[in-house]
C-alpha cells in the first residue's frame, strides 16, 4: 500500500504543483524518489510530529496541498491537538498519512500498534477518515484526497499487499463510497475496513461461505443511502477492523444503524456482530497474523447463518 501511495503521489505531484510532502524522519526507501524529484516541495522536519502537523497547517494556509507522512501512531496520536486545532479547526488541506495501521508492526509492541486512532480521529469535525484495503484503494483514496479542500487521514497497511479482486473497481472513488467486493446469495454480509479485507475474502473462499463482502475505504463519512440499503438487505452484518472495539469502525456502523432506525428508513433491523480488539494491549512478539489471532480478529463458521454455509 505504501508503494501505491508514494507512486500515486509522485504521479499527482508531476501535474499538481501544490502538492507538498512533509515527513518526520521516517520513510526510508519510500519517500526518496519524491524528495529527489520535487526538492522544493519536500521537507523532513526531523523527529518532531507536533511541529510537522503545525508546519503543515502553515504551508496549507499558503496554498499547498500538504501530505504529512510517518508510521504508526506518530503522525496521529503524537500530535492529536495540532490535528484537531491547527489542521481541522482551520479546515486546511492537510492529508495525514500513517503507514503501519493496526498490527502491521506487530513485533515492535504497543508503541507501534496503531489500534485506536480511527476512533480518536473520526470524532473530529471536518476530518475525513480513510483506511484503504489494498494498493488499488490506497491509490484511489490518495488521488481523491489530493483534490479535497479540507483535511483527511489515510491509514495505510505496509508494503507488498496484493490487490484484492472485486466485482467492481471504479477508476475514481467518491468520498464515503462503499465498495462491493463479492456479492453472494447468503443472508450475511461482512463489512471490512482497512487491510483486514484480504483475510476476509480468503476465509470465505476457503470455507465456501455464501456471504457477501463490502470494503469500507472510509470510516467517516460513509454513504448513508447505500448503507441503509445494505442494512435492509442482510439479516446479519459482521464488521471487522484492526482496531479497538470501542469507538472504531464497528461502532460507527452501529451509530449509523441507530440513525437509520431513528430516521425510519429501515424495513428490518439486521444483527450486527463486531470483530475488533477487546479493549486490550497485546505485549507478545509475533507476526501480524499472530497478533490478529490472539486479539480475536478472526472469523469462524459460527458467525454465519446455516444458509450461508
Amino acid at each position, binding site marked *: 500500500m505504501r508503494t501505491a501511495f508514494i507512486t500515486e503521489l509522485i504521479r499527482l505531484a508531476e501535474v499538481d504543483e501544490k502538492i507538498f510532502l512533509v515527513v518526520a524522519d521516517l520513510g526510508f526507501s519510500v519517500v526518496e524518489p519524491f524528495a529527489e524529484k520535487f526538492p522544493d516541495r519536500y521537507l523532513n522536519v*526531523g523527529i*518532531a510530529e507536533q511541529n510537522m502537523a*503545525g*508546519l*503543515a497547517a*502553515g504551508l496549507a494556509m*499558503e496554498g499547498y496541498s500538504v501530505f504529512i507522512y510517518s508510521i504508526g501512531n506518530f503522525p496521529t496520536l503524537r500530535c492529536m491537538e495540532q490535528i484537531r*486545532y*491547527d489542521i481541522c479547526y482551520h479546515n486546511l488541506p492537510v492529508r495525514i498519512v500513517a503507514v503501519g495501521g493496526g498490527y502491521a508492526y506487530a513485533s515492535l509492541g504497543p508503541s507501534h500498534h496503531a489500534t485506536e486512532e480511527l476512533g480518536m480521529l473520526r470524532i473530529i469535525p471536518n476530518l475525513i477518515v480513510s483506511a484503504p484495503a489494498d494498493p488499488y484503494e490506497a491509490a484511489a483514496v490518495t488521488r481523491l484526497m489530493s483534490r479535497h479542500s479540507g483535511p483527511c487521514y489515510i491509514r495505510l497497511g505496509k508494503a507488498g499487499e496484493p490487490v484484492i479482486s472485486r466485482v467492481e473497481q471504479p477508476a475514481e472513488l467518491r468520498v464515503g463510497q462503499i465498495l462491493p467486493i463479492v456479492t453472494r446469495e447468503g443472508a450475511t454480509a461482512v463489512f471490512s475496513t482497512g487491510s483486514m479485507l484480504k483475510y476476509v475474502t480468503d476465509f470465505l473462499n476457503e470455507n465456501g461461505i455464501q456471504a457477501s463482502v463490502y470494503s469500507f475505504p472510509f470510516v467517516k463519512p460513509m454513504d448513508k443511502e447505500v448503507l441503509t440499503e445494505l442494512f435492509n438487505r442482510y439479516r446479519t452484518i459482521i464488521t471487522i477492523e484492526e482496531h479497538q472495539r470501542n469507538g472504531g469502525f464497528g461502532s460507527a456502523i452501529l451509530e449509523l444503524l441507530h440513525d437509520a432506525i431513528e430516521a425510519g428508513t429501515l424495513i428490518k433491523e439486521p444483527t450486527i456482530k463486531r470483530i475488533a480488539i477487546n479493549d486490550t494491549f497485546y505485549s507478545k512478539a509475533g507476526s501480524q497474523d499472530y497478533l490478529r489471532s490472539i486479539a480475536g480478529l478472526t472469523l469462524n463458521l459460527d458467525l454465519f447463518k446455516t444458509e450461508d454455509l
Partner: protein
Amino acid sequence: MDAKSTTYLAGEIRKTALSMVYEAKSSHIGGAFSMADILAVLYEDVLHVDPSEPKMVDRDRLLLSKGHACSALYAVLGLKGFFPMESLASYGQDGSSFLTHISHYIPGVEISAGSLGHGLPIACGLALAAKRKARPWTTFCLMSDGELDEGSNWESFLLAPQLGLDNLVVIIDYNKIQSLGFVKDVIDLEPLIQKFEAFKWEVFTIDGHEIQEIYTTLSSAKAARNGVPKVVIAHTVKGKGVDFMENKLLWHYKSPNATEYQQALGQLD
C-alpha cells in the same frame, strides 16, 4: 517613526482592551497590557498590512500565539480599520465571532490560538512557504514567556535555523508571570539569551515598553535576510499602564469591577 502617535495608539489599545474585558467580564488583561506597546509599533510602523485587504498576498503575517491576550490584538485591528470599532462591543457576548481567545474568523487575524505552543510551528510553515515561493513577506510570531514551557515550540526552535528561515521573527512577551506564579518559580527560563543562541537564532533583547527601541529592533530584525531566524526577547511588565495591575498574577485572571475599571481608565487617560 512618530513615537508620539505610536505611544498614543498603544494607549488606545489599552483603553479599548480594558473596556472589552470589563464589558465581557473576561480575563487576561495583564497579558494584553504587557504586549500593547509591541502591537502598537508593529501596526503603526513595521507590518506591511492593508486593512482594506486583510488577505493581501504579500502582507506580513503576525501570528498571536498567546491567543488568550487577544483583546489587545482585536483592539489594534479595530483601531487600524480592519473592521468597525463598534463591532468590538460584542467581544465575548452570545453569538459574537470575537471569541475571548483569538479567532481567525476576524479580519486581520491569521490563526486561531488558545492552546499554547501552536503559533510557532504554524509560523514556520508560513515562513517556509514564503521561501519556497520566493515571496517577500515576513512572518512574526508573538509568544508568551510561560508558553516556552511547551515542547512543541522547541521542535520549531530547532528546525527554523536548519531551514534558514531569516524571514521569521519571534517576539517573546517576557512579562515574567505565568498561570500559577512567576516564571522563575515555575520553570525558570534563564539563561534565555544563551538558550536561543545555542539553538542558532539571532537574539535581540529590548525593553518591550520603549517605543523607539521596539521599532528599531523589529525593523532591523525584519530587514535582515541573513540566513538566520530572529528572536526578540521583550522585557515587559504584566498589567503595564495601570499601577494596581502591574506585576500582579491576579490580573492574569481577574476582570475589573466598576471601580477598578474607572480607576484603570483614569490612569490610561
